[in-house]
């Protein structure tokens, strides 16, 4: 435009000085335009890690290709990728393909969608540029953190003959029950030769079978409630990691890790969507399986709780129910578990301090809901369910105390 204006002014005013004044500009533009051969066709690709540990190291690989004749690549990084507060990166297009590795924000766990990346290529001092090309990023599953909880041993299952727990059932195990005289039918390898030599009669070692212990963690994923009671109207809004579901997921991961470390079998049941659970299992891979599942949970109030399948909870398993206990739907479930299973632990994950509404009518309604909830938890405690808040330091103490009371009873 400047050239046209200057040419017009030169002609109109008859002043060659105008043309001379824009001479550097004209030469510079001519050099810039002459330098570029071909037309860049940028292609953008973003490779995200499929999963990452919370607060761990994770990197995304961004590739831009088709940069022939390009000079400058302007990249718009997705939110949460790369340095904070600097989403734009400008690179020299000195080769047809450019790759760069950028850090991924892993400060929050869960399914993280970082949005899209964009790229624009320019040449000739920015006189020419391509349209913005966009590449969407795949969501990254950031696993919830694991806190070590000092938990007591679980009671062994009544079935099975392998595991790390002692039972009182006689059989082929490692725990010595007594030493008695040899009877027909006893295995020869059970003979205790030292005792037999001392007594002069054959004696055999009589042992109890070993068994494993199962823990099933039931997670109520229907609600994600914040400390602000007024926000409870919107059941579908996720409160993030500070809400009740965030606490429940963190608690589930920590309990699973603690019991898997003891060698127990741990499973997970999603009360809103039972088929989304994890079958009981042991080992490090099982912990990864559970954390993988937990990271993918999002609250969905549209999902109605289906009939709870008791078959998914092995007989003799200890059960932990993590819920905000805000409605009565959970009552029959926990009641049934309390009848059929010996150890049921109800963990209340509602935030400790609640912000009550200012309006009198709403305040009365909120108090009513909370009073019903308190009654519900008290009724569960009367049924023999251990009811507690999520406190990693307290859970172990309460469970041990209950085990002592049971033994003394």
């Amino acid at each position, binding site marked *: 435009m400047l050239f046209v204006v200057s040419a017009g002014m030169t002609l109109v005013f008859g002043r060659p000085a105008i043309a*001379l*004044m*824009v001479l550097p500009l004209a030469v510079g533009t001519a050099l810039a335009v002459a330098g570029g051969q071909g037309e860049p066709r940028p292609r953008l690709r973003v490779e995200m890690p499929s999963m990452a540990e919370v607060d761990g190291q994770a990197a995304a690989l961004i590739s831009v290709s088709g940069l022939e004749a390009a000079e400058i*690549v*302007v990249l718009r990084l997705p939110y949460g990728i790369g340095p904070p507060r600097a989403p734009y990166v400008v690179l020299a*297009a000195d080769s047809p393909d450019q790759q760069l590795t950028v850090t991924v924000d892993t400060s929050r766990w869960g399914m993280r969608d970082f949005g899209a990346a964009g790229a624009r290529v320019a040449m000739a*001092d920015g006189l020419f540029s391509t349209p913005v090309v966009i590449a969407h990023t795949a969501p990254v599953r950031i696993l919830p953190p694991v806190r070590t909880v000092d938990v007591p041993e679980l009671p062994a299952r009544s079935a099975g003959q392998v595991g790390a727990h002692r039972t009182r059932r006689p059989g082929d195990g490692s725990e010595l029950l007594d030493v008695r005289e040899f009877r027909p039918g006893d295995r020869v390898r059970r003979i205790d030769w030292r005792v037999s030599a001392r007594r002069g009669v054959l004696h055999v070692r009589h042992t109890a079978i070993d068994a494993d212990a199962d823990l099933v963690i039931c997670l109520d994923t229907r609600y994600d409630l914040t400390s602000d009671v007024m926000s409870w109207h919107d059941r579908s809004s996720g409160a993030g990691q500070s809400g009740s579901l965030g606490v429940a997921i963190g608690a589930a991961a920590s309990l699973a890790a603690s019991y898997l470390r003891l060698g127990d079998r741990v499973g997970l049941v999603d009360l809103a969507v039972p088929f989304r659970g994890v079958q009981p299992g042991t080992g490090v891979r099982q912990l990864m399986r559970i954390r993988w599942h937990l990271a993918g949970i999002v609250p969905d109030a549209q999902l109605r709780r289906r009939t709870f399948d008791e078959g998914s909870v092995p007989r003799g398993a200890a059960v932990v129910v993590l819920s905000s206990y805000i409605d009565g739907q959970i009552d029959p479930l926990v009641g049934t578990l309390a009848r059929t299973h010996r150890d049921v632990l109800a963990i209340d994950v509602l935030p400790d301090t609640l912000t009550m509404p200012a309006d009198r009518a709403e305040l009365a309604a909120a108090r009513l809901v909370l009073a019903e909830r308190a009654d519900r938890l008290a009724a569960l405690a009367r049924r023999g369910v251990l009811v507690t808040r999520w406190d990693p330091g307290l859970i172990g103490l309460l469970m041990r105390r209950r085990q002592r009371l049971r033994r003394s009873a």
Partner: protein
Amino acid sequence: MNPPAGGRVVSGRDMRVLLGLGSAGLLLAAVVGAGYRPHPLVIVALAVAAVVVAAFPASPAPAAACVIAVFLLLAGDIGFTVWFVVVAALLHSVHALAGLAEIIPAGARAEAAALAPTGRRWLQTQAVTVPILIVLAAVLP
């Protein structure tokens, strides 16, 4: 790991500051070169114009600043002087910087190497045109 990992980095804001300074210098050189005595209000107006150019490099503001500078210099009718050469060089600088600032967002971190071709071309152009303009300034009335 985060780009640009190594080398010098220029931010988009730095480029806008440079563009603002360049356009302020261009207008001031045109006013002074044309022989006007710059009134304080004129200085303020030039500063405002420079800020507008720096803030909106993708708008017609940089081109308008260049046209105004040309008009101011020619209105003074000073012929081919040193000021003429200075204004011509600044005109080219503002034009190049505005083109880059239009592409590079304010919050961007740019590799210095990405700006190198533009810088190289600017130097080449100045190396060719400044002697021509100086010779013309000496030869022409």
